[in-house]
């Protein structure tokens, strides 16, 4: 093998732009299709046409053996740059992909009827696919190639599943996706292996210096798996006939001309560097030959002419795989010539099938009769394409096949390294038989679609639009013209072919090579194939009798079924559906894994090896007293059968916590804990009035003891971790610097508060965001639709029954306005008076806490809780209207404003050149008040304050006001003598509210 010389390159900037043009066109297509319907395909066809023109302008560069390249830096750390490169091989494929793409898009205009469903998305998907295919063939980076490769898979999935209402179409799409993605993933692993071994992911770099070794062999095999699955080689071929569920333009384009060529393309790209890797020839020659035989044999018996072509495509793909994998100059000439020929004749044939199908409504070759006479142009085009397929002179297929026989003879003579002579003869024999099959099924196709059959009524054919027939005619004629252009083709393919080993004779593509062996082979296969066609009925009978017991598709289905079965078993075993079980599993793991580490640490500590255990009984005498009370309350919480009792006992542990905090030297959290505990208790009570008094009785089961043991184990483990971790601590805690830092940079004396609003302000910001989410969640669970039930002021509330209307005259004041909406027996004048006196004081106090919190105990959380409690007292004294009087704002607005203020104050310093959440201070001299030290982080604290007030207000509105309303309604319904039936229907209504 002559080492490929690094060709000179020509840098362009238009290549990626072309790919992006396809993407933009694909995005626009649905909108345009909405306006002009099926005519959208004609403007879309301009995009691939532009690509063809672009490629032709670079013909000179490419034919000189140079490359057109473009590099866009993308993820340099991963070696993932968008490297695009076009040599002779790529140039040929760009022309195939874009040229046939333009014709197929134009053809779609007439294939679809006006107003076909899914047309808009189809146009977009097909154009996007063309872009992905273009990107695939010009990629010069393995990872970029992989991305485009998978994109073609995805669009193929969408295009096969064109009609998602049809089950067969969905299944075919999924099958193609699963098979090709499986190969694609293997290929990705292969790429990574190759990239690792070569030290580069660039394809040209890889080929310039191909690595060797076991890892490379494995990598190449994985890559080949991807190529084999994409190009539908045995035993992964079955997805291709299934994919015929797609509309015919898709079959013509993706599943004949372009996508299925991707695997062949990859093999041709790699062949110059890797065809001598062990196993390469064994795998590809064997499977390629088998594919050609299996596909051809199955095609001989098909009744659906589209399916017949599909199996024919499988067969031809195997044929091409053999040629392109050989890795000799002659084989490459033949292979690429055939690849071009196949793209043209197979697309023509599919497009003709589409015409016949659309105009007659059937694809059954037993029902079609006399179509050729009524559609002569189509019949001629299809016949020309068919002749090219069988290798009949003077068509393109013939000249490629001539060289193909020469290449196979070289192989059989042992001229290819690594392929013994006998293997070459076997391949030659296989391909000869395969070519015979090709002749047989091609004849069957042309006869089946167009012949007039005795005893069959002539099929009715609707009139043919000229535009509909134009694309296949153009392609068929191109196949004829190129048959005379052997020399030009040789020149075009030579830059690629010359990178491969040349045979003894310098072969070339031409119509006439003289009276040689290849001509004999061509003639023999044509004759034998004609015989096969003549005996077609006997062939069908033979096939029926020798039908293999298992097909590849059945194996696939069995495999998918096995995957499904095991998934069900695993899921059924693991997903028990019970939260308790999941929690138990989690906790048992906690006990088993970190717990055993804990035991090991304890053992070594007590043995004197590790850090010792360092314990004091208590720091303050009050601690054990409070601790005993808390533990007693906790145990009683567990034992209690009444809801309220359990909640109050749990609350006692909370107040106990506050005491522990206080004696520990943490007044801030002690205060916040007391406030929060109080709010929690009130909220609990508000909800519990709606829930049954006792917990549901459950039978006592032995499993309870296991649960007790687990709970005790977790408790011991938590305490044990703290003990071991704390005792083992040797480093100075970072917080020892906090006190000074708080004053120097946060300008505050309350270290905890400065920690919250400055040192760890990001934390606090995250936390208030959680509060916003929680408040929103609560509101949506209780209000169900929106908070819009609204705030109602007292003056628009009617007096309840039995309450005398009080004359409102100037000067007459009430303690609280709200309670008049309550029935008299629910009111307490003393409570109302106290509330009236306390409320303003408490609110002022909370504002003091908010401002003073920077230097003294307090801060946004505590202040917000105090304001919340003040509101709560108003609510308890005067009912829901009193709450609205006290805070006539939407809780959501408060919460949102709070978050906004906090964010703004965090971002503020950036405007002055500081960093986010930095604190600044300023001294302001005010009359009367004297000098005031203002610190910018007060803004953050105000945000926190507003969020907390909003949260408490939300809780009161939901658990208080809203539940009041529900209770009132229930009472009213009960009073109206509504029986339990109706209360159930009310529940149903509420349920409907949720879903509606």
């Amino acid at each position, binding site marked *: 093998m002559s080492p490929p010389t690094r060709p000179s390159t020509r840098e362009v900037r238009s290549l990626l732009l072309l790919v992006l043009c396809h993407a933009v066109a694909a995005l626009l297509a649905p909108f345009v299709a909405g306006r002009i319907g099926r005519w959208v395909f004609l403007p879309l066809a301009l995009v691939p046409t532009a690509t063809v023109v672009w490629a032709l302008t670079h013909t000179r560069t490419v034919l000189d053996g140079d490359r057109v390249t473009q590099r866009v830096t993308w993820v340099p750390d991963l070696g993932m740059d968008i490297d695009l490169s076009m040599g002779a091989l790529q140039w040929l494929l760009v022309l195939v992909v874009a040229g046939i793409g333009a014709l197929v898009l134009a053809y779609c205009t007439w294939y679809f009827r006006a107003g076909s469903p899914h047309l808009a998305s189809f146009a977009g998907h097909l154009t996007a696919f063309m872009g992905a295919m273009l990107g695939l063939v010009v990629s010069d980076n393995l990872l970029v190639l992989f991305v485009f490769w998978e994109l073609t898979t995805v669009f193929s999935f969408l295009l096969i599943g064109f009609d998602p209402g049809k089950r067969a179409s969905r299944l075919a799409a999924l099958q193609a996706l699963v098979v090709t993605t499986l190969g694609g993933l293997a290929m990705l692993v292969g790429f990574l292996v190759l990239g690792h071994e070569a030290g580069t992911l660039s394809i040209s770099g890889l080929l310039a210096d191909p690595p060797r070794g076991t890892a490379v062999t494995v990598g190449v095999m994985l890559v080949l798996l991807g190529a084999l699955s994409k190009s539908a080689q045995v035993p992964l071929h079955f997805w291709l006939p299934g994919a015929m569920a797609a509309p015919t333009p898709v079959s013509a384009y993706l599943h004949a001309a372009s996508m299925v060529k991707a695997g062949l393309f990859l093999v041709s790209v790699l062949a110059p560097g890797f065809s001598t890797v062990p196993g390469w020839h064994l795998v590809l020659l064997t499977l390629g030959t088998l594919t050609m035989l299996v596909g051809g044999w199955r095609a001989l018996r098909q009744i659906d002419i589209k399916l017949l072509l599909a199996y024919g495509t499988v067969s031809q793909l195997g044929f091409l795989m053999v040629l392109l994998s050989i890795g000799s100059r002659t084989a490459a000439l033949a292979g690429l010539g055939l690849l071009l020929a196949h793209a043209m004749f197979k697309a023509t044939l599919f497009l003709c099938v589409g015409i016949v199908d659309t105009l007659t409504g059937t694809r059954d070759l037993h029902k079609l009769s006399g179509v050729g006479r009524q559609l002569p142009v189509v019949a001629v085009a299809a016949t020309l394409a068919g002749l090219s397929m069988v290798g009949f002179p003077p068509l393109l297929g013939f000249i490629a096949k001539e060289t193909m026989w020469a290449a196979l003879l070289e192989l059989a003579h042992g001229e290819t390294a690594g392929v013994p002579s006998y293997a070459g003869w076997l391949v030659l024999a296989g391909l000869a038989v395969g070519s015979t099959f090709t002749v047989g099924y091609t004849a069957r196709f042309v006869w089946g679609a167009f012949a007039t059959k005795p005893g069959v009524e002539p099929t009715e054919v609707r009139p043919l639009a000229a535009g509909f027939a134009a694309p296949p005619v153009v392609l068929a004629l191109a196949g004829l013209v190129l048959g005379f252009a052997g020399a030009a083709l040789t020149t075009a393919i030579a830059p690629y072919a010359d990178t491969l080993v040349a045979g003894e004779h310098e072969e070339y593509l031409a119509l006439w090579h003289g009276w040689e062996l290849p001509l004999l082979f061509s003639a023999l296969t044509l004759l034998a194939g004609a015989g096969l066609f003549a005996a077609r009925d006997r062939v069908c009978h033979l096939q029926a009798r020798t039908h293999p017991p298992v097909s590849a598709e059945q194996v696939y289905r069995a495999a998918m079924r096995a995957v499904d079965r095991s998934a069900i078993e695993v899921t059924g075993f693991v997903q028990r559906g019970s939260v308790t079980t999941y929690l138990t599993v989690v906790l048992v793991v906690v006990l088993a894994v970190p717990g055993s580490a804990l035991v090991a640490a304890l053992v070594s500590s007590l043995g004197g090896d590790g850090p010792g255990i360092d314990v004091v009984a208590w720091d303050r005498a009050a601690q054990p007293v409070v601790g005993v009370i808390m533990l007693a309350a906790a145990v009683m919480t567990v034992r209690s059968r009444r809801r309220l009792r359990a909640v109050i006992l749990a609350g006692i542990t909370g107040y106990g916590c506050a005491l522990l905090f206080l004696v520990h030297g943490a007044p801030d959290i002690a205060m916040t804990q007391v406030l929060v505990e109080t709010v929690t208790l009130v909220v609990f009570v508000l909800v519990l009035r709606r829930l049954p008094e006792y917990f549901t009785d459950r039978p006592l089961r032995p499993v309870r003891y296991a649960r007790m043991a687990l709970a005790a184990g977790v408790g011991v483990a938590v305490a044990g971790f*703290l003990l071991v971790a704390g005792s083992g601590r040797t480093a100075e805690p970072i917080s020892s610097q906090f006190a000074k830092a708080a004053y120097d940079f946060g300008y505050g004396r309350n270290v*905890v508060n400065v920690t919250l609003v400055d040192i760890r302000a990001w934390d606090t910001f995250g936390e208030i965001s959680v509060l916003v989410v929680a408040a929103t969640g609560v509101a949506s669970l209780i209000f169900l639709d929106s908070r819009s039930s609204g705030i109602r002021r007292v003056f628009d509330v009617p007096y309840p029954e039995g309450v005398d209307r009080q004359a409102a005259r100037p000067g007459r004041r009430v303690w609280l306005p709200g309670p008049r909406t309550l029935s008299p027996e629910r009111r307490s004048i003393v409570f109302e008076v106290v509330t009236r006196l306390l409320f303003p004081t408490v609110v002022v106090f909370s504002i003091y806490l908010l401002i003073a919190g920077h230097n003294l105990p307090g801060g946004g959380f505590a202040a917000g809780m105090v304001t919340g409690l003040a509101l709560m007292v108003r609510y308890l004294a005067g009912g829901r209207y009193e709450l609205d009087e006290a805070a006539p704002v939407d809780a959501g607005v408060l919460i949102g404003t709070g978050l906004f203020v906090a964010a703004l104050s965090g971002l503020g310093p950036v405007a002055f050149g500081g960093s986010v959440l930095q604190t600044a201070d300023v001294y302001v001299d005010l009359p009367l008040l004297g000098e005031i030290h203002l610190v910018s982080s007060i803004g953050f604290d105000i945000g926190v304050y507003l969020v907390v007030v909003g949260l408490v207000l939300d809780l009161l509105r939901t658990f208080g006001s809203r539940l009041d309303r529900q209770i009132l309604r229930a009472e009213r319904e009960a009073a109206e003598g509504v029986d339990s039936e109706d209360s159930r229907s009310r529940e149903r209504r509420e349920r409907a509210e949720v879903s509606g």
Partner: protein
Amino acid sequence: MEMNATLLLVCGGLVGCGVYLLLERSLTRVLAGLVLIGNGINVGFLAAGGPAGSSAFYGSADPEDMADPLPQALVLTAIVITLGTVAFLLAMAHRSWQLHGADDVQDDVEDAAIRRLAVDDETSVGHSATTQGQEEDDPEEDDR
């Protein structure tokens, strides 16, 4: 560092009781368990922060003698978060009671369906051996 045994005991005890309640089915009990666990862990933070000391106000005491302010700040946020969590779970308990007449945690219906398939040794729709997935289009299936 010296660990305070009393605080550790309280922490372990509260977490243990909380975990027991957490494994119950009634959401109210789960909630009480959550409150207990929250309190227990907060006490644990206190214990991990080191010995008791004077309050952390700059200038009021020597920083050496102050109780560690960092765990305090963490506990403060934890307390308020616990309120949010409790309120949310409470709303769920209420909703569950409204819909099912009980605030018990129900088993997942979809999981139960999969378990039935596993017990019957069945495959899911589309992978059945008899239809091969290639049957005629089933209009009912398509409507779904």
